[in-house]
């Protein structure tokens, strides 16, 4: 309260305490999801099928198309980071559905009536989605390695890829949560979700380079956060990979967009129970 000389350390402990409290609540929310996945991992397994099919089928066929091969390397090398980004997107973008589901079941009420700040709930949910994104990454790394993609297994690179996946999962799952808070019903959400996923995926550099796109699409791809995720992944996932936009810009864009979405979701989330 008062600005006396003794208030410095006291205030610092108080701040540490409340930061600790905040993190406790964030991880309480995130852990609940991880525990549920442990009880029933079938969802994780079934979701791993799609990216494997993309790599095997799409990757093998497209590798023979001339002109796609712009990075100088193998097309599979080019594709693998794109497919990882895609599978993170596909898992995260339907995350809002589980929020609506929790509302319908009543589970959301126990979070909303708790004293946890709404932002802690939103961030906790975002991290919960990240755990799914990370499990996808493990599968895709294994599959890509078997197919001979030149992956980098340097610990720094692996750690940065993990961080990137956590961030991108948080970004798209929070975006999804915002949509859930606006449309509020499962039926409407499914419609909107389907409608959004494809443009985000195809209007990006995930499966073909920006240089192949018509000018207008290139503009869209440059404002699409997925492109920045893919760009960073191409740099970090591959041996001798490089970034087109610069890692700093990639990370900056993803962080900024995620922060903005969290602020919006924090405002909207309580509306889901009203």
């Amino acid at each position, binding site marked *: 309260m008062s600005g006396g000389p003794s208030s410095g350390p006291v205030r610092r402990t108080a701040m540490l305490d409340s930061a600790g409290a905040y993190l406790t609540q964030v991880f309480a929310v995130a852990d609940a999801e991880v525990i*549920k996945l442990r009880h029933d991992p079938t969802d994780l397994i079934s979701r791993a099928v799609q990216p494997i099919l993309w790599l095997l089928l799409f990757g093998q066929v497209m590798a023979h198309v001339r002109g796609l091969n712009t990075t100088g390397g193998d097309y599979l090398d080019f594709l693998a980071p794109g497919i990882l980004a895609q599978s993170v997107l596909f898992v995260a973008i339907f995350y809002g559905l589980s929020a609506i589901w929790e509302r319908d*079941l009543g589970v959301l009420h126990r979070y909303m*009536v708790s*004293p*946890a700040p709404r932002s802690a709930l939103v961030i906790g949910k975002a991290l919960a989605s990240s755990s799914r994104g990370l499990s996808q990454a493990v599968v895709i790394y294994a599959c890509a390695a078997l197919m001979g993609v030149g992956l980098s297994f340097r610990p720094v690179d692996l750690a940065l890829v993990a961080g990137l996946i956590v961030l991108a999962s948080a970004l798209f799952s929070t975006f999804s949560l915002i949509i859930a808070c606006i449309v509020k019903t499962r039926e409407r959400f499914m419609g909107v979700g389907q409608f959004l996923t494809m443009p985000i995926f195809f209007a990006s550099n995930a499966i073909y380079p920006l240089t192949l796109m018509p000018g207008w699409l290139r503009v869209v791809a440059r404002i699409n956060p997925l492109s920045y995720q893919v760009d960073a992944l191409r740099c970090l996932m591959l041996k001798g990979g490089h970034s087109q936009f610069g890692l700093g810009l990639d990370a900056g864009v993803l962080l900024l967009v995620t922060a903005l979405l969290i602020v919006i979701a924090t405002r909207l989330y309580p509306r889901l129970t*009203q």
Partner: protein
Amino acid sequence: MDVSPGPIVSAKDLTRRFGTVLAVDHVSLNIAAGELFGLIGPNGAGKSTLMKMFTTMIPPTSGRATIAGFDVAVQPQEVRKRIGYVPQLLSADGELTGYENMLLSARLYLIPSAARESRVQAALEMMGLTDVKNRLVQTYSGGMARRLEIAQSTLHRPAVLFMDEPTVGLDPGGRRAVWEHVRALHREMGAAVVFSTHYMDEAEAVCDRLALIAHGKVAALGTPDELKARLGGQASLDDVFAELTNERIAPVGGGQ
């Protein structure tokens, strides 16, 4: 222990509209610390809506509600620290075990990590759930699920426990078990308990006072005996309920 100034729950002209529906209409009432308070009234009377405003789940359209002096619309965070809420829909996560659900609540309510384990075990024990604590909640009977719900919403020792139809759908044995546990909890924690019910026998047996809600308004308020005395002689709470809710329905279009 200390002198508690003013009521623990207070509403003044509390009102909530949904479009053209007036779900709660200028409700004013006070509930004292430690009181067992019942809300009875027909379907659609506004009981759940009233409780959702007290628990900060929905904002009032007008009027004011306070919990321990904190306005639900101004300081919802402070209110949430002091209440427990068992909603009409169950809110425990069916895909977690009872124990995991309790631990989640313990962390959300910031119970110090050193005390978490013992508090959770004690609460499970008190609600008679120790034997089933490691089972997924989706395999619980209705009665067990309700008791878990009560356990997880009182872990932080709230000043008021709100329960929206805590015994709906339970058989007589399950209902009795819920009330025995709530009474024990009430004795131990001294929290006020505010609950809604459609069972008159329950309201009569449990409440210190009750409010009869009809069409979003408080149609009557008092101890069960006071309400019955209004009708005189041998009236039961059922009679009071029928009399007052009809009285409210009758004047529509007829004027007063």
